[in-house]
């Protein structure tokens, strides 16, 4: 750690990890309800569980992005953060808003549009938080050294705030509601979030592989270019069956097929940098998460996305467990893993020690990634059977669900593995540092070359 103000990342990382725990716990409950449907059915029905599961995910990922930005921007801009105090206030406000939303959901206080359930006052608070954050990092970047990484990161973060404004627009016409709802949901996760992800990945590659910045930055431009060129019109794959024009079927099919490209190049990039760099960075766990992130995102977002994105395939798979399979692996691979990667990289620096609990951290990687892979296959198989019985044979929904129940048991077991993996990760990151790792000498010696 070179700058004192990078420390503001710490509460963001802790807050993100706490909400990650909430997300997994509630996910585990929701998975249990799938196989034992009478569980909690009156106290905390499935719709509330799912609301907490998805909202906790989105909020902790954002919190992780904020923390990652606060960690890496001073180092990139080569100056202290504009206002650490503002960053702490922002954290307090954001955490309060997140907890208030979750508690409100338990008491059925929500606005009922999928993923945008936050009551209006919390949406406003989110905008205020975002403005505080953007002001703080933009000022830091403007006064400091400009790099491609900060440019892309700041652009992505501004995009997140700007597209969130569409969440305030809820037209009475359902088809219009859906069309603009995707301006938030799709343009976030298949647009500007990819800029954030790719820039964090690029930062990690520079730090850990020691490859020349010029080369990494050229790759970064190419990757985020492909992401936006394909992802913007790729929104079309959500406009097939919601009352929008038929031309989206070929636009969506074409451009969302190309959405695989940025994820493919992220894998090529990560692997190539690691092979080319030849630096023996001591934080092997962070490196594993970084490369693992690119690979899993390629499968989850890229391959599993392509699997059902062509309109004539999507006609049958739309809104089945195939979608759920893709959603789980894509979010995990792209956004959960990039967060866990930067946390793993930054924590030893923030705690002023050499990388610690590496074996445990790597074990948690394999357990979580393995669990998510099994979960994805279980849901994919469930989805394929569902498509055949319900969409081809025309069998009744509930009858079909009974047929595919065994897959939901596998999914629950896989979820339990992910949960245990996450517990190991938390200990590996937050647990006491072994005495042998407390020498700051090693930490100082691995200051990266530029």
């Amino acid at each position, binding site marked *: 750690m070179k700058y004192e103000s990078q420390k503001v990342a710490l509460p963001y990382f802790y807050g993100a990890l706490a909400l990650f725990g909430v997300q997994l716990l509630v996910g585990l409950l929701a998975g249990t309800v*799938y196989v034992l449907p009478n569980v909690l059915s009156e106290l905390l029905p499935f719709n509330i569980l799912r609301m907490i599961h998805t909202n906790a995910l989105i909020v902790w990922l954002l919190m992780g992005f904020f923390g990652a930005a606060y960690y890496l921007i001073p180092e990139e801009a080569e100056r202290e953060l504009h206002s650490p105090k503002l960053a702490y206030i922002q954290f307090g406000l954001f955490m309060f808003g997140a907890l208030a939303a979750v508690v409100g959901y338990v008491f059925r206080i929500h606005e009922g549009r999928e993923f945008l359930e936050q009551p209006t006052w919390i949406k406003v608070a989110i905008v205020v938080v975002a403005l505080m954050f953007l002001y703080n990092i933009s000022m830091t970047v403007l006064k400091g050294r400009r790099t491609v990484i900060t440019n892309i990161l700041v652009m992505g973060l501004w995009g997140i705030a700007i597209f969130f404004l569409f969440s305030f627009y809820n037209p009475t016409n359902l088809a219009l509601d859906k069309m603009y709802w995707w301006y938030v949901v799709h343009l976030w996760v298949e647009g500007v979030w990819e800029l954030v992800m790719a820039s964090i990945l690029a930062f990690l590659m520079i730090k850990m592989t020691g490859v020349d910045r010029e080369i990494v930055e050229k790759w970064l431009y190419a990757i985020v270019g492909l992401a936006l060129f394909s992802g913007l019109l790729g929104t079309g794959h959500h406009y097939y069956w919601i009352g929008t024009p038929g031309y989206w079927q070929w636009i969506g099919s074409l451009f969302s097929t190309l959405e695989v490209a940025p994820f493919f190049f992220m894998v090529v990039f990560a692997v190539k940098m690691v092979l080319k760099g030849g630096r023996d960075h001591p934080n092997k766990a962070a490196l594993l998460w970084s490369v693992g992130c690119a690979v899993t995102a390629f499968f989850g977002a890229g391959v599993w996305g392509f699997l059902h994105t062509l309109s004539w395939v999507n006609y049958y798979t739309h809104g089945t467990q195939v979608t759920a399979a893709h959603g789980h692996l894509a979010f995990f691979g792209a956004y959960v893993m990039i967060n866990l990667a930067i946390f793993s990289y930054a924590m030893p620096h923030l705690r002023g020690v050499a990388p610690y609990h590496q074996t445990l951290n790597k074990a948690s990687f394999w357990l979580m990634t393995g669990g998510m892979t099994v979960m994805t296959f279980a849901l994919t198989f469930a989805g394929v059977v569902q498509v055949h019985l319900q969409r081809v044979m*025309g069998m009744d929904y*509930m009858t079909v669900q009974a047929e595919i129940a065994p897959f939901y048991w596998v999914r629950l077991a896989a979820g339990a593995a992910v949960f245990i993996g996450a517990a190991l990760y938390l200990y590996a990151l937050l647990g006491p540092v072994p005495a042998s790792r407390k020498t700051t000498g090693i930490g100082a010696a691995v200051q990266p070359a530029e």
Partner: protein
Amino acid sequence: MTERFTKAAARNIFYGGSLFFFAAFVSLTAASHIYVVNTGTDSKGLTDSVARGKHVWEKNSCINCHTLLGEGAYFAPELGNVWIRYGGDKDPEGARAALAGWMAAQPSGIEGRRQMPQFHLTEQEVNDLAAFLEWTSRINTQNWPPKISG
């Protein structure tokens, strides 16, 4: 990557291309907006009751169990065409009564079956919800879903 592909070239392609594709996307959604209002949906039939029914739908977070035009949670049946499944296109009164009966009978309490909560809807709210689902069933979905089962 080759030396000829410079960082400046990569940067220009990125900013120029993104701007171009963003403009294309915004233009196409603007055209779609007009299409939705004029052709894709029944704008004239969008009554106050339908609007209130959409609010009932949102207030009770139906979307976090059901799908509506394929979007939502995958825990309970698709409802974009439930009006047709209930025979509402031929017998609206019968479908409305069936929906009211269904809502009143929840939760079923049957062991091992997914439970729908009791939402304590008023008669007006059930009627508005029915109006909303009826209006939704008339959206031009390019013939989706493939089967009446949703």
